[in-house]
């Protein structure tokens, strides 16, 4: 009597060695064992399909003259008309420039700060003090965008804002900063650094905690001081982390979210405060030019992908670290 050690066949009764029971297709068997796992995934799959993939399908209205009554299919196909309209529009370069500069300034000012903060925090001797400081630096991150912008507007008020009060105390002249296009980028960027520096340092601190303590010990025995330790051991150790985050940030250089800008924007500072996303909000949601603004959104996404690829390739060529 041979017992076929064949995984394909069901182990069936058959003490007498008679023919095995009908074979269950391995796929059916797998499904009957594991279908519940797939059911657990199902709600998520469905929701992502409806709210992420269906809008991707709907994005084709960028190539049509979409009218709600006609639906997506019924609306007339116009090809690249909206893209051309955007790129040749009078305000295209201003929008592009504002978006790019806002992003760039935020990057230049905001990227190093969490790193430096992480280094300083990492050097703290007292663990209790370190944890307290950390906890306190995270607080601005948890305030809502509306609260922070509300604070900014209050602080910048000409007559009652604390910033102007300090300026007049020091002998200067109070200015209405929020109406000044030239001040907008500074306001936006500095408040962004204030809000994000503490929280942003978490990742770097996590990376720093992974630095090999033996190397540090060896360096210390060799007589390295703290600054040398930071420069020659800590910094190179977390350089991959820094580069990855830098790549990700550069890749999204042309996407400035509308949340904060919308709250700080007013008719007087539009020259510098109007970015692509706020333009899309104004013209798309408020003015219902759906096809046109969808085209703008697509255009923006494509540029982002191109930027990300370029930056990633450059990083890959220059060193070892890259996203893919």
């Amino acid at each position, binding site marked *: 009597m041979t017992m076929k050690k064949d995984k394909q066949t069901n182990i069936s009764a058959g003490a007498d060695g008679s023919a095995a029971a009908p074979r269950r297709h391995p796929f059916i068997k797998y499904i009957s064992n594991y279908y519940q*796992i797939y059911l657990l995934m199902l709600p998520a799959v469905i929701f992502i399909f409806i*709210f*992420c993939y269906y809008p991707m399908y709907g994005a084709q209205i960028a190539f049509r003259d979409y009218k709600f009554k006609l639906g997506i299919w019924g609306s007339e196909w116009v090809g690249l008309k909206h893209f051309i309209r955007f790129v040749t529009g009078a305000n295209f370069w201003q929008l592009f420039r504002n978006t790019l500069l806002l992003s760039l300034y935020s990057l230049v000012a905001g990227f190093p700060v969490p790193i430096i903060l992480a280094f300083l925090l990492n050097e703290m*001797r007292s663990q209790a003090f370190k944890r307290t400081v950390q906890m306190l630096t995270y*607080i601005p991150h948890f*305030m809502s965008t*509306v609260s922070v912008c509300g604070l900014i507007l*209050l602080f910048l008020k000409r007559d009652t804002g604390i910033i102007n*009060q300090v300026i007049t105390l020091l002998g200067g002249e109070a200015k209405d900063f929020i109406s000044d296009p030239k001040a907008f980028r500074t306001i936006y960027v500095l408040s962004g650094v204030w809000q994000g520096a503490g929280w942003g340092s978490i990742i770097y601190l996590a990376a720093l905690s992974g630095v090999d303590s033996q190397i540090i010990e060896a360096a210390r025995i060799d007589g390295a001081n703290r600054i040398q330790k930071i420069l020659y051991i800590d910094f190179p150790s977390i350089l991959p982390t820094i580069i990855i985050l830098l790549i990700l940030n550069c890749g999204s250089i042309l996407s400035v979210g509308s949340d904060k800008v919308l709250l700080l924007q007013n008719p007087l500072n539009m020259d510098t405060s109007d970015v692509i996303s706020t333009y899309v909000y104004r013209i798309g949601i408020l003015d219902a030019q759906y096809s046109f603004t969808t085209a703008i959104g697509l255009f923006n996404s494509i540029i982002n992908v191109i930027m990300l690829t370029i930056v990633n390739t450059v990083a890959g060529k220059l060193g070892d670290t890259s996203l893919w």
Partner: protein
Amino acid sequence: MEHAINAHAKVRESRFDRVFDAVNAVIMALIVIIMLYPLYYTVIVSFSDPYLMLRGEIFLYIKGFTLDSYEYMVREKSIWTGYYNSILNTAIGTVYALAVTIPCAYAMSRKGIKGKGAIMGYFVFTMYFGGGLIPSYILIRQLHLLNTRWALIIPAAMSVYNMIIARTFYQSNIPDELYEAAKIDGASEFRIFFSVVLPLSGAIIAVIALYLAVGHWNSYFNALIYIDDRKLYPLQMVLRAILVQSQQLQNIDPNSVTPDELVEMMRKQMLATTMKYALIIIASLPMLMIYPFVQKHFVKGVMIGALKG
């Protein structure tokens, strides 16, 4: 001899190091002060006399303690509708999103599940590509969710980022032996999830729930584009109306005539500013209160996410 050399080295490093530590501590203290001063200032102004604030006398401590700013702000009804809406949306939205995210994360964490890679790719793709603002808006409109609280709740079913964090948790914290043991005992997959895995998921459910709750509580943009009915405004929208759009508050009556009422109105004008500071405190209070207990979990979440990233 060695001992002497070591001692010498230690003395040399510790002088420089002590200076470094002192400077570091000072810098840290300065940073903390800069970070927290805006909040501190908000608190002291909200409790101070509006007239003194107008004259620029308030910087470091409360002057002319008064509860008027709070008293007037508390009477503003839209704040309480805002609070109500935010609490309701956050509670429902968090439970709902947890119910979608956690089972999915668990399922994706199991080994040997066929097609897992493709499904993961399906999810991750949406982290980088999307239809955009307008197609999403049109979808909500087609689903007849416009101007309802469900427009804020339903689309936020799952953030792939959160799901990945939870999946990592399950991958590192639930040993395979547990699954095998349960199967030997004859448990079905559902049974394993509900009776074995869920009870062990306390930590990750807490982290994800917090992320979701803060997300719901602080968001305003979705309400901005989907909701027109003021009765449905979440707290952030009310905040925006009062702080950013400088809406007339209902309890400031512009129709006063008598000199007494004029003085009262002028006082109310000054109060208008300190009231806004009070409002920020009122709106941020929940977050500020639970924050110390809760920030540990957030940091843990970021750590898990960072490892995966």
